[in-house]
């Protein structure tokens, strides 16, 4: 039973984080701030929904000790790790491309990258 | 005029194809004897757990050969497009 509480909690956190992330993508004015919302919030949300799956796998494994739940846990873990790294790097790539394209941050107070060119 | 004609063509095609939505039902195939055979016997006959793979590589392996050939053809085609021409290799096309 205690597992179910944790699973439910993780799912809830994941949902809230994802929702906030998407709302951020919709509300924020420029690419950089949207990337903030997208990268952090949706990655966080996906990690928590996957954490729920992992917890589910652990609880099932404790009950049945079936090999397939090991697979479930490990594969979910790998998916999450891959997702986190690719999201962070992808966000960096998009941000850099946007800057190189000439879009400057909206209402920026400081821009050290301005004169720095390759 | 042209646009109207094209729209009529598209409408007729859409109408004909929409028959699918009424005659075929989603989730309840009309017949499935061949697929039932695959599901019941495929695993034993080929020793493959994944029935899709057993069909792709065993029951319909020849299609897969053809498909690999298509990919090979595309690679050759792309290679032909971006090959280096010999110096002075020209064909008159008038």
């Amino acid at each position, binding site marked *: 039973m205690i597992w179910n509480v944790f699973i439910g909690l993780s799912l809830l956190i994941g949902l809230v984080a994802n929702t906030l992330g998407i709302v951020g993508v919709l509300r924020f004015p420029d690419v950089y701030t949207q990337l903030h919302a997208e990268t952090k919030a949706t990655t966080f949300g996906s990690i928590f929904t996957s954490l729920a799956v992992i917890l589910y796998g652990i609880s099932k494994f404790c009950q049945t000790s079936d090999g397939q739940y090991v697979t479930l846990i490990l594969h979910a873990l790998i998916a999450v790790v891959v997702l986190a790294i690719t999201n962070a790097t992808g966000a960096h790539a*998009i941000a850099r491309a946007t800057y190189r394209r000439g879009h400057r941050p909206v209402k920026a107070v400081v821009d050290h990258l301005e004169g720095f060119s390759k | 005029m042209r646009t109207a004609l094209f729209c009529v063509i598209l409408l007729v095609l859409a109408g004909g194809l929409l028959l699918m939505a009424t005659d075929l039902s989603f989730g309840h195939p009309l017949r499935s004897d061949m697929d039932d055979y695959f599901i019941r016997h495929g695993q034993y006959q080929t020793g493959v757990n994944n029935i899709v793979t057993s069909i792709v590589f065993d029951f319909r392996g020849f299609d897969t050969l053809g498909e690999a050939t298509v990919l090979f053809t595309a690679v050759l085609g792309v290679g032909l497009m971006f090959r280096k021409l010999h110096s002075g290799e020209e064909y008159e096309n008038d």
Partner: protein
Amino acid sequence: MSPWMFVVTVLAGLILLAMVRLIRGPTSANRVVAMDAINTLVVAIMIVLSVVFKQVIFIDVAIVYALLSYVGVLFIAKYLGGEL
């Protein structure tokens, strides 16, 4: 409706929301952001759905998905940055 299914449905709704950014996004970079968000959400959906369907092997799809859409994003970013 099980909690898993509820989560999945809400996430699908979020995908449709993210599509609003895909439609409106003034520049291509905004659209890439929206596509990235959709991508992340779809991976989450796939992982959760493998519990709904009770089929462990489905998670492989999610891994492939997370891995491969990254390449698409990188190509678009490289093009946007004028480096391709």
